[in-house]
């Protein structure tokens, strides 16, 4: 699908004059399905589509496009345009929570946070379990710059909707912003249990554990970096460096008892080899900088890392 999207984008950019309707429709549809948020482009093409080719769209698609374009317009601060689309949507679907939340987003965009909050709380009276509106409350606090209240609001949301993966990711990011690493680690544990195949979760989780520090955490972090190495077949440089950094901090000697301990002893060396190879192949000019660092990590110096 991504390839298709690139193709359509290229066609649209190359088109002289007003691009054709079906290309625009296809572009917007692909953006919707892939959840990509390239707002200025979407707003521009959406504007053309809605102004000239409204009749080409089926009833259903028209309003899906309107929602998509309205959000893109708000992102791009094209406020009058956004207002017109939102007004149209609201008159078509009076009383709809989904439409009114667009209205709330408009208030957020123009900075009228009080009105936005009032609107959202109103909608929650109608439907107290509406995920969309609850999440907008979190976004609202973010817009206002109250990270702590945003965190609180998101925690409350996750207390009820404990399986919303994106929400856990967002909460983890927010905790990292306020440097609450333990809670961020908790969130990442949830994410690991959601998508155990996602290597970046392993790397991030290891990053957090490494940052918190302490002997157990260094060991655990190294395991998670190692897992990421396995999942990416050595492709994640961060994981490779991470293994070395953790190993450098692990000072107690491991006795060669079984295959596990042998691997623990061998891992730093193998990792160094792999890293050197990668640099030689992809960035040979950086090799002179990397070699001394690797040597230092290998020899297990703890300070300055």
């Amino acid at each position, binding site marked *: 699908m991504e390839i298709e999207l690139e193709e359509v984008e290229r066609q649209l950019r190359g088109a002289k004059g007003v691009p054709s309707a079906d290309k625009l429709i296809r572009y917007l549809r692909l953006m919707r399905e892939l959840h990509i948020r390239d707002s200025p482009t979407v707003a521009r093409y959406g504007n053309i589509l809605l102004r000239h080719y409204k009749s080409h769209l089926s009833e259903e698609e028209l309003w899906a496009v309107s929602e998509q374009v309205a959000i893109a317009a708000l992102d791009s601060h094209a406020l009058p345009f956004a207002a017109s689309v939102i007004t149209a949507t609201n008159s078509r679907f009076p009383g709809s929570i989904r439409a009114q939340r667009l209205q709330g987003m408009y208030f957020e965009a123009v900075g009228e946070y009080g009105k936005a909050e009032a609107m959202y709380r109103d909608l929650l009276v109608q439907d107290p379990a509406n995920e969309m509106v609850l999440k907008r409350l979190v976004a609202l606090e973010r817009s206002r710059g109250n990270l702590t209240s945003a965190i609180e609001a998101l925690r409350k949301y996750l207390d009820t909707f404990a399986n919303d993966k994106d929400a856990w990711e967002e909460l983890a990011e927010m905790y990292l912003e306020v440097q609450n690493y333990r809670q961020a680690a908790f969130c990442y544990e949830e994410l690991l*249990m959601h998508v*155990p195949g996602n290597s970046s979760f392993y790397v991030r989780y290891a990053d957090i554990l490494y940052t918190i520090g302490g002997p157990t955490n260094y060991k655990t972090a190294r*395991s998670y970096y190692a*897992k990421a190495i396995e999942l990416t077949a050595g492709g994640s440089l961060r994981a490779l460096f991470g293994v070395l950094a953790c190993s450098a901090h692990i000072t107690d000697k491991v006795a060669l008892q079984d*295959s596990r301990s042998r*691997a623990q002893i*061998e891992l730093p060396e193998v990792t160094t*080899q*792999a890293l050197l190879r990668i640099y030689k*192949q992809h960035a040979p000019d950086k090799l002179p900088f990397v070699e001394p660092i690797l040597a230092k990590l290998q020899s297990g110096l703890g300070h300055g890392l």
Partner: protein
Amino acid sequence: MAGAHPLLLDHAVRDWVFIPLTLAIVLMKLLTQYMHQLFNTPPPSNKELKEVREMQAVARAGRLRGFGRFIPETSFKMRKEYFAGEKGFFTQKPVTRSPQEAMATDPTVMVDMMKKNLTGMVPQLAMGMVVNFFFQGFVIGKVPFPLSPRFKPMLQRGIDLASLDVSYFTSLSYYILLLFGLRGVFSLIFREDVVDETEMMRRQMNPMAAGPMGVDMEAMFKQEKAALAAVDFEWELESAEERAVDMLRRQMKAKKL
């Protein structure tokens, strides 16, 4: 000698039965359709926040059981304690009412059902009885194509004439035919969901149907608690370093790195 001569039906039959019957059925369906739209308030979002919370908690516990081996042991134990511990989440009494309770205590459910019945099925049944009473015992039309004799009981309710051609049908059969046939036509005209009483009837007749009014949360809590207690934790990453070494060695051997 079945159907050698085509029967000639009286004009009067056509004028006073066929056309009025058709009109009446169409009108009635239209009426029920609009009445349903009028009366159909969106189902009260009986997803109360607390009920959602409990459902989601059960799902999360399931995730914990399924993928808990990817997180460190201490973290797993902490969550297990949270759910299945002495004062854990699943030891409390759930707020979600079981279906029987819900039916008994919530009056809106009954009213809803009554409304659906009244506007949907009653006029149809009434009309069916009227048709049966007034337009009984004669044939009102002929299907333009020949049919196998197995359609006889379906198309000729009330007439026990063995020699009558199967293509002729009585008013009652015609009524039922139109009833089901118009649904398709209506779904074309009104692009939204047409009133689907048969689905409702099907649902009512199916004894195993899980109602939209929730599951037995207390039983699920007990189940999850027991299942969690039974989990034997084994950390997936116990062998992580080994596998990483193997992977790196393999990649380097294959010149991929």
